[in-house]
């Protein structure tokens, strides 16, 4: 009798399961409609037209890098140089600088967000490298930075060579470590490395003595200087930040590249950089 009960149970459950699977299928097909559907009626290429039709530019930005992309706790708005660039772009493409929709990205997610069409472009301290160009389109650089060192004043370091054998803190997913290793080899010195997930943690590590120097792009270090620390008067390995978009979106890439050229030429970019003390 118990066995019979279980058999009938199986039937009931089977029916229920069919329903669930049906649900799942419907859900999936609804979700995967993101592909191109050939809707370019205007004179713009399809990838640009899609943004115009939507009426809003979706931008991946940082939210924890003061000066570039930072979610201001007082206003709850994302602000910074990269946001202003996005606004200028929205003004040119959509005629209204407020037509942007920002999405917070991490070094881990900015690639997938582009691949999945969740954002149109990424402006998020994204360093242009040959390797990365295989996966995404990059514009010409809108900002050039170099790697620097933030150290404690009390330690008395003056030059990169004073850091021989010391522990250098770098950010995960950044290009800094490889560059430092190369530089160390060149100078015949060596570094120990410690990688951190975020800049505030790096700064805390420096203050607590866990690392001897905090090494990332100088622009970022600027935000962390205080009365006990200083930036070494030494920099190397210029890093160029570019706007990235999906590899398939060739026309968008061209448009973005021209846009950067324009704002460089007409002084817009300069005034944005001045506004955020990045010059």
């Amino acid at each position: 009798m118990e066995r019979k009960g279980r058999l009938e149970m199986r039937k009931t459950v089977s029916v229920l399961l069919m329903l669930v699977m049906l649900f799942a299928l419907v859900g999936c097909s609804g979700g995967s409609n993101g592909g191109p559907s050939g809707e370019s009626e205007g004179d713009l290429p399809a990838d640009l037209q899609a943004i115009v039709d939507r009426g809003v530019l979706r931008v991946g930005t940082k939210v924890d890098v003061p000066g570039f992309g930072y979610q201001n706790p007082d206003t709850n708005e994302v602000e910074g140089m990269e946001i202003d660039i996005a606004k200028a772009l929205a003004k040119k493409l959509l005629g209204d600088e407020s037509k942007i929709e920002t999405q917070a990205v991490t070094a881990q997610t900015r690639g997938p967000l582009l691949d999945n069409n969740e954002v149109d472009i990424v402006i998020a301290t994204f360093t242009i490298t040959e390797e990365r160009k295989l996966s995404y389109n990059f514009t010409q650089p809108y900002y050039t930075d170099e790697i620097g060192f933030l150290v404690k004043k009390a330690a008395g370091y003056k030059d990169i060579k004073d850091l021989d054998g010391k522990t250098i803190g770098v950010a995960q997913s950044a290009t800094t470590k490889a560059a430092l290793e190369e530089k160390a080899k060149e100078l015949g010195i060596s570094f120990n490395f410690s990688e951190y997930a975020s800049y505030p943690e790096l700064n805390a590590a420096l203050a607590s003595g866990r690392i001897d120097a905090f090494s990332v792009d100088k622009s970022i270090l600027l935000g962390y200087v205080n009365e006990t620390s200083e930036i070494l008067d030494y920099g190397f390995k210029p890093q160029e930040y570019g706007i990235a978009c999906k590899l398939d979106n060739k026309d968008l890439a061209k448009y973005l590249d021209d846009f950067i050229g324009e704002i460089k030429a007409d002084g817009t970019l300069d005034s944005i950089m001045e506004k955020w003390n990045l010059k």
Partner: protein
Amino acid sequence: MKDIFTTANMLFVLEGLKMTLYISFVSILLSTLFGTILGVLRSLTGGIFRLLAAAYIEIVRNIPNLLWIYVIFVVFRLKSVEAGVVSFTIFTSAALGEIVRGGLNSVGAGQWEAARSQGFNTFQVLRYVILPQAFRNMIPAIVSQFVTVIKDTSFLWSVIAIQELTGKVTILMGRYFQVGQVFTLYLILALIYFVVNYTLSLLSRRLQQKLTY
């Protein structure tokens, strides 16, 4: 030193807490449903459905959540928050599926016979006799799983930049980066999680006592 305890900062952190609770609540709700289905499939059916449920549970629960969050974010074309809800639903369903399986096993086989002899059909037996008893036995394990969900949503910031509690506090560290301030912020963070989760555990103990006596 800038003051951390401003109204704006408090509200900022509160926003994060709201996000943490929202994602946890929705995924807990959905996982309870799917987890029950999975548990029932795995312990009461046979053939392909049992196999599928088992495969789902085993694959999902033997790979870290941290990795699932990322994979689901990449594979499904979802906004971050939705990706968060989906990923937590996916692995919490598997965990609850196992808990439900254990709970069903804990209800004696005689109960089936007894209920059926009263004219209940199979679905009714499950709905009115077996599951209520099983769920009562499972309360501690289920609530402990809920606590785990709330705690683990702290991964969402570092993996997919969702501004939940941990995220908001980390962003604050971008402005309040003196060591003492960072330390204070971590303390606040731990305290908030503790209060939420401890309250939840206390409630579950109450609930179980009520149902037992």
